[in-house]
């Protein structure tokens, strides 16, 4: 007995399905196609739904417009981009206003590309943008583009996850040298000889780098003795007081830009160091020359004795052979021995 008739709707037995069976089949088929088509189209599609990497994923892809400085590479490394924090973002989230009408796929011609980049970053990172906006860096950027923008410090396609408070010493050091240090070379070169950076260069990550003291977006102009500076130091030195912040991070190696007291101490102790060591080493050296001469004297006497000893051995062997000759002459038994062996001059041998 067939209980169920094909096409009967709703089916008997009271079980309600959302759609009639024919529709279900279609839904399944469409879903399968939707799921597998991108996979079939290859990973390229998943990474780059907009197809930008068809051209920009080629390592040899350069800007076709003639340039006296040589061709500019327009290559974007797909693997590196995929690994960055924005690996899942479409290119157009940052490259806004791009249209695929090659060859003029230009930005909004009225806007500077860097400005577009800031706006893009702003759209997703409003808090950081607000912090940045109040900084001297931003002011300088809007004035004459001298200050850094987001991408000057973060890069563009290979932005890594930030691990606040757990940065490695290498990261802190390279941030100071290659990022802040690119524009603040003198400040870095000076700070380099101070404890925090020496420790960082030896892999001690708790020590402070530029952004630990100056903040990364607020871009704090610290002044010794101010509350803000105390607050920054307190992050790692809980007992910091105003007096403590008079410690100078950015003195040059000869302490020429320091308070005269520091320079005086520096000159006094370096002079002391040199004078004492020079006197000490000079004294030791003249002591050594005396003793070297004495040692050479002893050595000379020793050598004299050694030569005497060798000569004595020689004499002894001569004497021995003389004795042997005398013995053979007496007995006449030794056949090959004797003959005309040259007579040794004993006088000469024993002279010296």
């Amino acid at each position, binding site marked *: 007995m067939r209980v169920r008739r094909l096409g009967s709707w709703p089916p008997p037995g009271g079980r309600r399905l959302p759609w009639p069976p024919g529709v279900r089949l279609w839904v399944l088929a469409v879903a399968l196609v939707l799921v597998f088509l991108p996979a079939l189209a290859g990973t390229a599609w998943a990474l780059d739904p907009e197809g930008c990497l068809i051209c920009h994923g080629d390592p040899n892809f350069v800007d076709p417009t003639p340039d006296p400085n040589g061709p500019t590479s327009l290559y974007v490394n797909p693997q590196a981009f995929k690994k960055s924090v924005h690996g899942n973002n479409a290119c157009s989230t940052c490259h806004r206003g791009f249209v695929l009408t090659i060859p003029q796929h230009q930005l909004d011609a009225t806007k500077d590309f860097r400005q577009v980049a800031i706006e893009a970053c702003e759209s997703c990172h409003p808090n950081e943008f607000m912090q940045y906006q109040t900084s001297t860096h931003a002011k300088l950027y809007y004035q004459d583009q001298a200050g850094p923008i987001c991408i000057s410090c973060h890069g563009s396609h290979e932005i890594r996850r930030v691990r606040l408070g757990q940065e490695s010493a290498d990261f802190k050091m390279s941030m100071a040298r290659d990022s802040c240090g690119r524009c603040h070379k003198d400040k870095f070169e000076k700070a*380099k000889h*101070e*404890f925090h950076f*020496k*420790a960082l*260069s*030896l*892999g*001690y990550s708790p*020590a402070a780098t530029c952004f630990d003291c100056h903040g990364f977006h607020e871009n704090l102009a610290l002044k*010794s003795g101010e509350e803000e500076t105390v607050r920054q130091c307190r992050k790692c*030195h*809980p*007992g*910091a*007081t105003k*007096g*403590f*912040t*008079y*410690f*100078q991070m950015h*003195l040059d190696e000869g*302490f020429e830009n*320091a*308070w005269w*007291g*520091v320079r005086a*101490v*520096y000159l006094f*102790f*370096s002079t*002391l*160091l040199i004078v*004492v*060591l020079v006197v*000490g*080493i000079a*004294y*030791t050296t*003249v*002591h*050594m*020359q*005396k*003793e070297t001469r*004495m*040692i050479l004297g002893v050595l000379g006497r020793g050598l004299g004795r050694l030569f005497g000893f060798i000569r004595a051995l020689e004499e002894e062997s001569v004497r021995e052979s003389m004795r042997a000759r005398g013995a053979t002459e007496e007995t006449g038994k030794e056949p090959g021995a004797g003959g005309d062996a040259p007579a040794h001059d004993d006088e000469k041998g024993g002279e010296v």
Partner: protein
Amino acid sequence: MEEGKDYYVRFSWYHRLSHFVMMTTFIGAALTGPPLKYSYDFWAQAMMSFWGGVHNAGLIHRVMAGFMVGDFVVHLLYLAYHIVVRKAKIIGPDSILFWKKDLLDLIGMVKWFFDRGERPRFERYTFWEKFDYWAVFWGIAMIGTSGFALWFPTVTGRFVSGIFLNVARIIHGDEAILAIGWILFVHLYNSHLRMNVFPMDPVIFTGKVPIEHLKHDKAAWYDRLVREGKIKPE
């Protein structure tokens, strides 16, 4: 100790212990400090990783500093005891204080270097031994004070301006290099390479010096000991 030789006890167990502590802590500190000072030089990285990083090296450095300063403080107490309680004579042939003879000895020594005279007849402490002794006082005062200032920077900042931390670092580094240089070039020469003591003068570890050695190395003292009947003439 060689058999059949007579020895004179020159250093008590306390002297020897205190020198031993000073020596080991000095070496420990001298091996852990400079890699930080010269952190950008190629050898510093290797040396730091040998100690297991800045943190460990810093720990060792502080332990060494603690024992060294402890040794020094005990020595101050020892001096106080001898001067106040035992009423030791502060100046004289048995004293470590400089006196006129040291200057004459220095001149005599330089003359001897250039064959212009006999080697001076030294008393109990030669001038270079006295210098090494007093150098420790200067070193501890300079390196120790600045070291503690840097060890507790915020405490320092509570009493004096933070600029003195910059000053402390200059003093700490320069004086440390001076001390290491002095030990390497002068002290080690005097106690290991001099003809009289080569390859090593063990007296600071054994406390005993062969009388025969005393006789030519510290002739004046030898004469005095014989005069005072402390040793039998050879």
